[in-house]
């Protein structure tokens, strides 16, 4: 469907009068999702560092109002005349690979705004709350000039911490009445939050949740230069959005001026992720095309051998026979 050209560059994403060619952008995103290897060369051409872009991650358990909050944040940044892109990740079925992506239902008031680009993404087997293509697509969107990129992660639970390495500011959205979930959250999720959002704060228990979070934060052994603020919102009524965007602006300022090394740390993480992904892709490609491996794999799995012994055998094969 998508014809990759050897000469693609950033200008190819713009129409003659300077407007973004949405169709081409959207198709290129599909190529990144379907065939990331093929997209790499073009991505390298298109990529340009956009230091001004605000990269925001929105995560939290299902049903806390992440999409509605995203909708309000779009409206806020549009009121400042920013170009806004959203990547909304939802879970793909592990059985069929299919997905129902419904996050944009809550964002439909922005559907025809030419300066807002919303893309739904199935997680396609990725754990960690994002999709394999999320980082590349984020880089593409900032490269073609979006001022704000909002990434809404899959709301599943405690493992979706990938988002912290990708964006500059992570909003962890919670709501009153989650009860024991907050206890569960304290392990992994609490640490990724740059800002806590208590959404549906008009429901009973908001004050208690606020105290619980504050208590957990005070237990931190590490002395951090940034103390995550706790902001209460009622996204359906657009309440608390100003306080939230003020907190986001403060965090950006903190990253930009006082602690550039923090920003660099996230960039380093992203880079490591890319290297890891590349190693895996190259290795899998190599094995796919390697007759000796194919045969070994058939024999090993047919023989129902001890898997630990098989792995040792595999390592020896790689080192000796396949001349890696």
């Amino acid at each position, binding site marked *: *469907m998508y014809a990759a050209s050897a000469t693609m560059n950033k200008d190819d994403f713009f129409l003659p009068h300077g407007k973004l060619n*949405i*169709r081409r952008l*959207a*198709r290129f*995103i*599909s190529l990144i*999702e*379907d*065939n*990331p290897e093929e997209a790499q060369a073009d991505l390298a051409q298109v990529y340009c560092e956009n230091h001004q872009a605000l990269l925001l991650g929105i995560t939290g358990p299902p049903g806390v109002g992440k999409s509605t909050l995203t909708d309000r944040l779009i409206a806020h940044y549009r009121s400042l005349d920013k170009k806004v892109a959203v990547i909304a990740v939802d879970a*793909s*079925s592990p059985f*069929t*690979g*299919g*997905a*129902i*992506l*419904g996050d*944009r*239902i809550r964002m*439909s008031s922005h*559907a*025809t705004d030419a300066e807002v*680009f*919303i*893309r*739904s993404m*199935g997680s*396609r087997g990725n754990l960690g709350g994002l999709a394999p293509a999320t980082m590349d697509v984020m880089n593409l969107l900032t490269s073609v000039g979006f001022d704000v990129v909002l990434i809404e992660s899959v709301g599943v639970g405690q493992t979706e911490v990938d988002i912290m390495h990708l964006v500059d500011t992570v909003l962890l959205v919670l709501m009153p009445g989650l009860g024991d979930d907050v206890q569960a959250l304290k392990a992994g999720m609490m640490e990724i939050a740059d800002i806590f959002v208590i959404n549906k704060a008009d429901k009973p228990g908001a004050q208690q949740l606020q105290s619980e979070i504050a208590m957990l934060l005070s237990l931190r052994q590490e002395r951090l230069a940034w103390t995550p603020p706790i902001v209460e919102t009622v996204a359906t009524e657009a309440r608390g959005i100003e306080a939230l965007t003020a907190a986001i602006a403060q965090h950006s300022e903190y990253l930009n001026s006082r602690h550039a090394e923090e920003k660099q740390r996230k960039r380093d993480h992203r880079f490591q992720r890319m290297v890891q992904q590349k190693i895996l892709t190259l290795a899998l490609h190599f094995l796919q095309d390697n007759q000796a491996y194919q045969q070994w794999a058939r024999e090993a799995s047919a023989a129902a051998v001890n898997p630990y012994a098989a792995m040792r055998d595999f390592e020896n094969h790689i080192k000796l026979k396949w001349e890696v």
Partner: protein
Amino acid sequence: MEEKIRVLIAKPGLDGHDRGAKFIAQALRDAGMEVIYTGLRQTPASIVATAIQEDVDAIGLSILSGAHNTLLPRVAQLLKEKGAEDILLFGGGVIPAEDIPYLKEHGIKEVFTPGASSSEIIEFIRTHVRR
């Protein structure tokens, strides 16, 4: 990696009943497709903008209000204006048989009426999407 079929399921116009649309969305998901579901009361303009941003291969419009002869051709026309008429457009819902030829003349590739099976629709999409 495989190229995944992406389908937008939308409800144009004002009727407030989306059980059929949800049923189809679920069936397509179970067939391994990625379904972008936008819910009730979408305008033709928002449907087309969404389809382009999401780079879908097909759009399924569910309509029960009786306004199909206006709304469905309008979506087809807007797709054409945006240079996106290669996106497969189909409709479903309570649509009288005598209206179907008119719709097919106006850019709706197929119309599924009550009683159509989900496997029929899945087969139709797999056969007709670009790629």
